[in-house]
């Protein structure tokens, strides 16, 4: 009998005092664990389809990648020379149709070289047009 009375008088309150501590701990955890991802890249707006075909004319400057060698308008250049020559063209000040630089690469050209050429062209305001090799 006595036990029953005691049970009725018990107040079952949820302890909420530590809720704020838990919440702040969670915030701190997320702040420490979160990484703000900022990748570094180069933008390249490649013309496609008909635009690419239009871009290919005799006057359009061409960059050839043959393995480790780089050719700009059929003259062997280093990567630094390529950047200098592209800067001299002042592509950024020209209209979009005149900013096209053709990029041709031989079979087996590694992406590293391709990326460097792409970066040099894009950073100088050029629009890259990939030259497709004709299938025989």
């Amino acid at each position, binding site marked *: 009998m006595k036990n029953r009375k005691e049970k009725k008088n018990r107040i079952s309150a949820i302890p909420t005092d530590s809720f704020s501590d838990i919440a702040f701990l969670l915030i701190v955890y997320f702040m420490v664990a979160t990484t703000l991802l900022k990748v570094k890249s*180069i933008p390249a707006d490649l013309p496609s389809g008909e635009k*690419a075909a239009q871009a290919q004319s005799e006057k359009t400057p061409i960059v050839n990648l043959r393995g480790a060698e780089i050719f700009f308008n059929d003259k062997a250049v280093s990567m630094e020379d390529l950047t200098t020559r592209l800067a001299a063209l002042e592509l950024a000040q020209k209209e979009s149709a005149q900013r096209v630089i053709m990029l041709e690469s031989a*079979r087996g050209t590694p992406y590293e070289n391709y990326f*460097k050429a792409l970066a040099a062209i894009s950073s100088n305001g050029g629009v890259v047009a*990939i030259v497709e090799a004709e299938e025989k």
Partner: protein
Amino acid sequence: MALKKKRRTVPVPVASMGDIAFLLIIFFLVCSEVSKEPDVDLISPRSAHVKKVESTVVARVAVDVNGRIYLDGVPVNAAKDVEWGVRALLTSTISDDQRHVQFKCDAKLPKETFEPVLQAIAEAGGIIEAVGDLDE
């Protein structure tokens, strides 16, 4: 006679701290986006021209060290699948700022592997954001 100033004890209201903390957690949970960065095995190329990307990308394409192609972290069979995938994602875009497609590729891969993927992105109408590391 100098009067002693009584030090008032100002109680800091801490009752609502828990609510504020939980509101902050909910805010971060709602606003944060789970990274879609594909966890692929590759070594990024290096260039002195890479910059931190400010624009948001509509899709992420990666080509790993074995030449496997991934679209938003999901492996695809061929470059043509990338074209259709990117094309589908770009249908709901309005401006050029929404056309950026992130492209990651292993530095050693040959042209035959990565160039069809680049062309597929260009054909789909995407602006390529070629990811690389800064060459200092």
